[in-house]
């Protein structure tokens, strides 16, 4: 009896672990199979480089969506990464311990807010702010539903992930490196600039990579504030249409138009591959640092 239970749970463990290990492959494969019909009609390069989006006529050009995705991601991370870096240095090098503990709670809460709530907040605060304040300030017309609004909401959403990782990176740097630098006559700030930042470099890069991959895939919150117009945005105050929003917005019609579902699955596949790439690159970097340390 005991043998039986033993082997049963052993078998269950094996099945479960292989299921998990093969899951990324299954996801990739599933999406490839579904996007095949479209890929048999059009070349991948053609789809990626075409800017005509007209599903009824069978034109599926991804370029406007790719550009929107890149713009939103770059602006969002350009805002959030420096902020996180500054805050992480402050928290780990200068701030009293209680503040670091308090910030851990802040980070947890920020990370726990559902993305649809960020979207609501974006509509209530960020969109009018961009439309009524920022755009006029730069002499631009904007409804507020724009690339910039999406990027601002995303910037806030990526903060908890990046900040959390950066704090860990800085906390893992041995205090002896700081001792060495100080004993050579450096001020505390010089020590941070020349030694702490350098020692943490690969960790910092990897936190940035995670932030970017998080930003690339975020869907609902961005979808709610970014405007969703298929076009090449001329400025950040124009509406954009990132890939995740494209997928999420058209699930209703996709079954009634030929190849539409195939196109959306291809979009999901693209997203999957890019995000995995950034993720793996980031993890690889952090692994390398923890091994050498």
């Amino acid at each position, binding site marked *: 009896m005991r043998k039986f239970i033993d082997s049963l749970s052993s078998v269950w463990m094996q099945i479960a672990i292989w299921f998990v290990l093969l899951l990324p492959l299954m996801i990739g494969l599933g999406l490839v199979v579904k996007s095949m019909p479209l890929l048999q009609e059009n070349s991948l390069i053609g789809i990626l480089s075409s800017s005509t989006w007209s599903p009824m006529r069978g034109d599926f050009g991804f370029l406007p969506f790719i550009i929107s995705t890149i713009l939103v991601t770059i602006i969002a991370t350009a805002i959030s990464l420096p902020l996180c870096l*500054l805050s992480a240095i402050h928290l780990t090098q200068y701030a009293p311990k209680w503040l670091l503990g308090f910030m851990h709670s802040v980070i947890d809460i920020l990370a*726990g807010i559902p993305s*649809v709530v960020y979207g609501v907040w974006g509509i209530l605060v960020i969109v009018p702010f961009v439309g009524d304040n920022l755009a006029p300030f730069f002499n631009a017309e904007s409804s507020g539903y724009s690339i910039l609004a999406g990027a601002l909401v995303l910037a806030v959403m990526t903060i908890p992930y990046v900040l959390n990782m950066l704090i860990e990176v800085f906390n893992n740097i041995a205090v002896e490196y700081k001792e060495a630098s100080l004993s050579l006559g450096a001020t505390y700030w010089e020590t941070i600039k020349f030694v702490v930042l350098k020692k943490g470099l690969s960790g910092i890069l990897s936190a940035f990579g995670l932030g970017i*991959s998080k930003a690339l895939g975020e869907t609902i919150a961005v979808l709610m504030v970014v405007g969703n117009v298929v076009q090449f945005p001329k400025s950040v105050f124009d509406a954009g249409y990132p890939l995740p929003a494209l997928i*999420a917005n058209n699930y209703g019609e996709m079954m009634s138009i030929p190849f539409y579902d195939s196109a959306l*699955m291809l979009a999901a596949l693209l997203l999957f591959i890019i995000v995995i790439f950034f993720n793996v690159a980031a993890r690889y970097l952090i692994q390398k640092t923890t091994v050498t340390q």
Partner: protein
Amino acid sequence: MMNRKKIEEQFFRLLMSLVTASIILVLVYIFYIILKKGLPSLSWDMVSRLPEGGYYFGKEGGILNAIIGSFYISVSATFLAFIIGLPVALYMNVYLVRRPKFLTMTRFVLDALWGVPSIVYGAFGFTIMIYFGLRTSLLAGIIAVTLLIIPIMIRAMDEVLRTIPKGLMEASLALGSTKTETAFKVFFKQALPGFITAILLSFGRGIGDAASVLFTAGFTDHIPEKLTDPVATLPLAIFFQLSSPIPEVRERAYAAAVILIAIVFTISLSARLLSKKFKKHQV
């Protein structure tokens, strides 16, 4: 020279404190706005009634369908993720500790899965649905959310198990029990509070996610009766009501956001309290 160095340091210290303060302020501001907008239209009807005829034009009713639907999906998905995740976490910490390369690779895969956007899980869930000839349904929603929270669940349980001393396992092995029994009994007892935290964490993530259920669960005004019925979810209820042109409906979206936040934070607060308690009892 000395002075310039000092000024630079002072400047950056000020800047860094401001950034930290502004992060805290943003969090406060998000809560302030959502509560300010949502509380006025929050009512008992919202949480206790189904949408009635004309609800989406501002008439009577509530979003009980979405609240129940979200719980159906999240509870079942958490349960499934636990059943799959527990053996994996145990396997990693009982068997794989002796194969560090394989263990590192497993953690690597889990981290990668953790980073996959929920819309991709939604799309993948959709391909499974099509493959099995399913329509948007409770079952499909459960599958998509399960996949989404499996990596979260396993990594959280893995962190708990890693802290358990190896000697514990070896000691109980010496008493003559077979390996799997050791795994399930000793580890499980030691790790229980941490596991509850992991479960609550995954549940909170599952109930708040919209993109994964968008394709798979559908939306309906009714409470589903079977696994193949479509089902409404709270995040989608917020999303849809917010796109309505009618102000009353949009205000209910804000109220629904308050409900969602309340649920998510009740869960994460209990997770925190439990994990604190857990840490206290650790040797």
